[in-house]
């Protein structure tokens, strides 16, 4: 498979993520999907803090800066008054899985007509690599310096499974660790967007992504880590609402 990942026009300038960062790839997939579906002019994203907040500097749809964790509520407020727009949140694991877990759950509980792209990189990226709700056993972070110990931190949060337990439109988990997974993830994102456009309720795509900077690995090593370790814990595929 040598399909090329062309640069969508929605990405109007180079992004400022670290080299090899998952955010760069995932945002590109999202932009491609919005353009393919012809909705780049009526898309509004809610981003809060974390490295996700760098997105509006390179991604040219309308944006709102939400408070840390509250993007699903902010986006739902927009969607309820502008029902014909495509409204999404783009969130890290600290954002959607820790401080904002109530807002994440309630977006699913109320089956709000929004879409969440959830970037699971296993750390708090922007604040310098602290332990996240998704940190894996033995993983060294700045707040688990001897390695994450499930006895103290508990097991990683499986947000996709949690949200799929509600009566929502679509839930999937993908990864960007190789081209095969990347194209699948693009399809998941497309299905999630279509779910919203067709009024089928809340849609959610979790993406296993690398943070080479805080993992202290090269981009290539980071991708291998996702394949060898990440995807063993977090199972990829459609959890709810897909054709499968």
């Amino acid at each position, binding site marked *: 498979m040598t399909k090329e990942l062309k640069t969508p026009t929605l990405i109007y300038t180079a992004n400022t993520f670290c080299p090899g960062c998952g955010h760069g790839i995932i945002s590109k997939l999202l932009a491609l999907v919005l353009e393919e579906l012809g909705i780049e002019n*009526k898309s509004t994203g809610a981003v809060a803090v974390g490295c996700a907040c760098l997105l509006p500097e390179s991604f040219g749809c309308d944006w709102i800066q939400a*408070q840390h964790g509250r993007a699903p509520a902010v986006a739902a407020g927009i969607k309820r008054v502008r029902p014909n727009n495509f409204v999404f949140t783009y969130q890290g694991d600290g954002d959607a899985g820790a401080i904002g877990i109530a807002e994440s759950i309630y977006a699913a509980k109320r089956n709000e007509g929004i879409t969440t792209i959830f970037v699971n990189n296993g750390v708090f990226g922007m604040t310098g690599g602290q332990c996240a709700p998704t940190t894996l056993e033995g993983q060294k972070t700045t707040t688990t310096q001897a390695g994450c110990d499930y006895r103290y931190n508990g097991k990683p949060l499986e947000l996709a499974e949690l949200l799929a337990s509600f009566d929502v439109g679509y839930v999937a988990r993908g990864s960007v660790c190789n081209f095969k997974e990347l194209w699948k993830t693009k399809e998941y994102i497309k299905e999630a967007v279509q779910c919203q456009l067709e009024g089928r309720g809340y849609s959610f795509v979790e993406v296993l992504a690398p943070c080479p900077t805080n993992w202290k690995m090269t981009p290539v090593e980071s991708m291998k880590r996702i394949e060898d370790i990440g995807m063993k814990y977090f199972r990829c595929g459609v959890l709810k609402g897909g054709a499968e």
Partner: protein
Amino acid sequence: MAKVLMKGNHALAEAAVRAGCRFFSGYPITPQSEILEYMSWRLPEVNGVFVQTESELAGISMLYGAASCGFRTMTSSSGPGFSLLQEGISYLCSTEIPTVIADIMRYGNGLGDIKPAQSDYLQITKNGGHGDYRCISLAPSTIQEAVDLMSKAYELAEKHRNPVIIATDGALGQIVESVEFPDPLQHDPDQFEWSLKNIREGKHKIVTSKIYYDYIGKDYDNHIRERYDAMKKEELWEEYFAEDAEVILVSYGIVSRCCKEAVLTARENGWKIGLIRPITLWPFPVKAFRKITPKAFIAVEKCALPQMAEDVAMAARGIAPVYSMTTGSFIPSGEEIVSFAQRVMDGKEAEL
């Protein structure tokens, strides 16, 4: 429209709907829940949106999204719930999004108690969240005034692109008075250049703080100063027998009504007491103090520690000494206020 008898909280909600409010998201807490309950059936009648959220944090966040689209929005809370709104209020101020928020004040710290109070004064007027901002705060003293101030609240919010807080209390929220409503207004959410629209207009829009567009900082600092200097010009107050008074009471909201009674009682006995009633708590009506020369000012408020009294002391600098009467759990009678004033004149009360 003819006068009707209505509970304060219901009247406030109806006034918001008539002022064009089409979105309410909030969480129950006594003594404000009737606003939420009223909105839950009233907004759908006018094709508006009502959401009972999982928390006040989510309520103000959802409102933030809708308000960013140019819609007239509202939330309300009290006590611990009002504390949870502060995160969102700080963001609304930083992104310059107008909305109206009602605090139906209750008494006490922590969970406290559902009794009426005026003890959120400092939180309402001195930015209760982080950073530096202010919210224009309107404090009606009757249900009719609350209704009359509602469209003004939205106008001020949109003029200055900032949240406006309606500060009332459990008493004004719960009592029933006769009230006359204005005709409903039509609000066009698409009239603003800054709002999120159905279709992206030219370059994409980011609802965010100006701070990210000024890395040197000077322009941002001045921008903030200019915003709040402009809002400071919106002082509103009522003077009640203030001109010739020997003692001036300063009081707002429900307690100002007791002070009016005190003024009349004293005047019946030949003693000239007057009242300044701030209608805007922020900006505090300092101009009201410029043209009068009483022997003393007395701040009368329903909280345990002096709160508004601090602003009275600032406004009264160089004019006359300031005394603080805090009535805590109790709504004072006119006579109690007069006897406090008497003790002040007799030198039996300490200056603030």
